[in-house]
């Protein structure tokens, strides 16, 4: 059973300290909930953009898994 390990948060922190969080593998309200704690912990939200890149995300995760 590996369904839980398919849910990831990718965090890119720029050299200026700005953070971009991408939630992948979550469905419904769990997606927002997944990043909420991190958002609060790191600072204040500047933007929040929904995406529909499900298939690209799947590809990226497969690639990452192969490397890992």
């Amino acid at each position: 059973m590996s369904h839980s390990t398919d849910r990831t948060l990718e965090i890119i922190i720029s050299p200026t300290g700005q953070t971009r969080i991408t939630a992948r593998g979550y469905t419904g309200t769990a997606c927002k909930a997944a990043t909420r704690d991190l958002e609060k912990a790191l600072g204040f939200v500047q933007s929040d953009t929904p995406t529909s890149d499900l298939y690209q995300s799947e590809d990226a995760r497969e690639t990452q898994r192969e490397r890992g």
Partner: protein
Amino acid sequence: MSHIVTVRTQVRDPLALAAACRRLGLAVPSIGTAALFSGSAEGHRVQLPGWRYPVVFNTTTGESRYDNYGGQWGDPRMLNQLLQVYAVEKAKLEAHRQGHSITEQRLLDGSIKLVIRDSGSGGPVKGGAL
């Protein structure tokens, strides 16, 4: 479905700030009042290399105070680097607190990438010093 959130870093966790300072080879922050060119500020004082005055973080409000005279009294890249590493350490602390594993990777453009894997409730903590 996913979503992308952009967050502006605010320093609110003294533990993560201390961890960031250690990682950058800086002295651990001291708490107190610092004299700046324009007045003074109270909070967690960090002395950055080459900076004339310390940077003072108020971890209650998330605000920071400093006088670097547009870069002439201190390279702003040093402060940016501290904020970057603070965010890394804070994210790692948060991930560990929730029992998730985390990996870290430095990217070519100087960014740092973290990947947190949701191990579900009660999952083992696999992350650590990276």
